[in-house]
């Protein structure tokens, strides 16, 4: 039993990382309909930027600067790559973001390194025990910060003018444009917010996922969580990602260890077979 509790605890911590990446992905999808396959790689770039900054300045400054640079980077990508193809079919956008993902991966490899880098964790990874269950401060911080970001975002979407405008754009682009909302600015803003969240995820996750150009592939685990929760639903994605994280860690207890790596993908396919609309029953029909 303790094994199970321990596995679930570890799983929720891993799941929180998936959830943060998922969050960054969904915010863009919800308000712009863009399926951004490069989200994971934007996160990886942010982690590399923070890695370089950490060498030359104190932690707090490096983190804030990384969030700002990442936001600017997200804005640049939106203006440079996404906006010109905004009105093309989903098919084109998916392929373009895949191309972008590859450019970012190659770019990171050339600028920094293609190898795995040891990333100093911001919070210690030394475990402490409550009862027989081990916790690491890093995982607890990851869970806490994820929850804070989710809470802040829900407040932002609900109570600020910008947040309301974003929800309006998500519902109907044309109508909100007619109501005087600057749809293009909203798109840019969405990418900035999403890139910053991705940066937070990257900084927190780098010590666990290891920092290297292929780190962004973690996004596929987020996809599994997003689909499990119901595509397009933020609470669904977070619950789904937690379940994926827990399931991965639990699988080690019952199945040969090799399954851990592909368990998320198996769940992804299984959900698509059994219930494509996910737990929360959302199914995007238009794309």
């Amino acid at each position: 039993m303790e094994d199970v509790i321990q596995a679930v605890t570890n799983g929720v911590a891993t799941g929180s990382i998936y959830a943060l990446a998922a969050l960054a992905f969904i915010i863009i999808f919800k308000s712009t309909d863009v399926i951004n396959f490069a989200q994971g790689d934007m996160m990886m770039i942010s982690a590399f930027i923070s890695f370089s900054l950490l060498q030359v300045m104190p932690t707090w400054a490096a983190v804030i600067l990384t969030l700002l640079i990442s936001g600017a980077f997200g804005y640049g990508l939106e203006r440079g790559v996404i906006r010109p193809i905004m009105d093309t079919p989903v098919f084109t956008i998916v392929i373009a973001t895949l191309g972008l993902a590859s450019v970012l991966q190659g770019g990171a490899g050339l600028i920094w390194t293609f190898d795995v880098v040891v990333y100093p964790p911001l919070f210690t990874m030394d475990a402490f025990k409550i009862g027989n269950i081990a916790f690491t401060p890093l995982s607890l911080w990851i869970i806490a910060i994820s929850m804070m970001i989710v809470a802040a975002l829900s407040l932002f979407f609900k109570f600020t003018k910008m947040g309301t405008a974003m929800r309006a754009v998500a519902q109907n682009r044309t109508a909100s444009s007619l109501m005087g909302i600057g749809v293009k600015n909203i798109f840019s803003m969405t990418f900035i917010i999403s890139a910053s969240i991705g940066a937070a995820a990257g900084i927190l996750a780098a010590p666990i996922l290891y920092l290297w150009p292929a780190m962004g592939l973690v996004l596929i685990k987020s996809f599994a969580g997003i689909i499990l929760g119901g595509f397009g639903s933020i609470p669904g994605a977070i619950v789904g990602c937690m379940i994926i994280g827990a399931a991965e860690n639990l699988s080690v207890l019952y199945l040969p260890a090799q399954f851990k790596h592909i368990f998320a993908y198996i769940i992804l396919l299984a959900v698509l077979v059994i219930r494509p609309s996910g737990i929360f029953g959302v199914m995007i029909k238009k794309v």
Partner: protein
Amino acid sequence: MEKVITKQSLKWMLPIIIVLLVVPALPFVLDYYVFILSLIGVYTIVAIGFNIMTGYTGLISIGHAGFFAIGAYTAAILVDRGLVPFIVALPIAGIFTGVIGFLLALPCLRLFGMYIAMATLAFGFIVEETVLQLNAITGGHQGIAVPMPTIGGFNSGIVMDSDKKFYYFILAMTLIFIFLAINIVRTKYGRAFLAIRESEIAASTMGVDLTKYKTMSFTISAFYTGIAGALFGNLLHYIAPNAFTIFLSFQFLVMIVVGGFASVVGSIMGAVFLTALPEFMSSLQEWQIIVFGLILLFFIIFVPYGVAGLIKGIQYKRALKAMATSEQEIQ
């Protein structure tokens, strides 16, 4: 049904085929160039199969390296274990991959665009990881050596013990599969695929059986890729999991985007591109990922129908011009 081979198309096809038949046989042509030509043949089969699913039917796959790996490993293991000779293993590999494609199509039938992309992405990872972990059968990350391909029994019949001999086999297979593909895409099947790509709702309203044709597209695509995988393994004499990563799936995608969606000629050009680029960049390995990405971005934004579409556009403009001048002459 339209005639696939017309007098006009023969006029430019024949010389190419003759060159492909004669030149590699010349003694001074290096094995290396023959190997490159063989590789183009293998990739052509992949590109056509991939195009049937993604270009014609509009179902994005990011997991075709998975099919490629299944084909390569099935053929290699069957021959290596002495179960069946190469010439039997090849169709088995294709059919087995086709069956896997059929099974993967079943969950994808209820899904739309990006879900299929994600499902195939997951599939690609599952295959890659499974091959890696099934040590006992696949040799894990060390891979397995592939025995010499033969036509006939295990060591009897024609043993294709040189790149040149195997080249002619691959050339024959490539031509057969090009011919088959033209027959598929120019008949009602191809038209059904295109209709599904343009609008699933409209297609089903016009009486296109979505379930049947989407499954068919998936299965044919997997079959083609499986055959190509089997040929690939025998061409390289050795296969390992690190040859079948997500980057290969991505390269396949770049191949048909550059060559041109929904075009057999485009598929061939894409295959030439995919073979040539890494050869030119062999000293700049590290730049490969970024260059592939940039080329994909450039083509999808500025040349969305690929090289084949570009040529078609030029032909079309020329035809318009010719029509305009002939009209003037009449006046």
